[in-house]
């Protein structure tokens, strides 16, 4: 069974204090790993897709990296508007509908 574990569950940072969120996964053949941002009361918003170990993608203050067992979302010099829950999901290569399994998220709070 595919599994996704995110840590920490919650993270509180001072504005400008860089850190990383972790997503550990087990999947029967990885087709893709996704990162989403979710604001309170809203649906998840797509950030990145990573397909193979060693791949990296960046967007503003966010950088996602991927190994064979985990992914990191690095946040550099965060701002209060980066406060949100960040979700990780994996898509298995097998399965007729490209099954996607989500983690429970890391709730990030950035304090001014």
């Amino acid at each position, binding site marked *: 069974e595919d599994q996704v574990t995110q840590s920490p569950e919650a993270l509180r940072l001072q504005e400008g204090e860089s850190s990383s969120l972790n997503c550990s996964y087990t999947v029967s053949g990885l*087709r*893709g790993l*996704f990162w*989403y941002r979710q604001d309170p*009361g*809203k*649906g*998840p*918003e*797509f950030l990145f*897709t990573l*397909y193979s170990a060693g791949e990296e993608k960046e967007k503003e203050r966010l950088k996602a990296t991927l190994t064979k067992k985990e992914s990191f979302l690095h946040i550099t010099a965060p701002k209060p508007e980066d406060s949100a829950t960040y*979700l990780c*999901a994996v*898509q298995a290569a097998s399965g*007729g*509908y*490209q099954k*996607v399994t*989500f*983690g*429970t*998220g890391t709730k990030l709070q950035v304090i001014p």
Partner: protein
Amino acid sequence: DVKVTQSSRYLVKRTGEKVFLECVQDMDHENMFWYRQDPGLGLRLIYFSYDVKMKEKGDIPEGYSVSREKKERFSLILESASTNQTSMYLCASSSPKGSNTEAFFGQGTRLTVV
């Protein structure tokens, strides 16, 4: 811009009522999904559809059904609402083609069953 629209942001229904949640996407995506999201449990897949009139059960289909009569529209039906179906419901769509297979989500429907 890519858009998935859910018909209601908030709903309050009584136990035993039949409830319809509607979702429309404008991206011509083949795949559509219904998830529910509960604290500590993450997103759990209820049903998905990969084509018009096609549907497959997800991880937690009990107490739910779905309908997809048109490519752009996917409806979730709670046959007889119960209090344990109080949750945030999220609709999503994606395309199985090409390299971009990420899902796009609607804004969510917060359903309360009393």
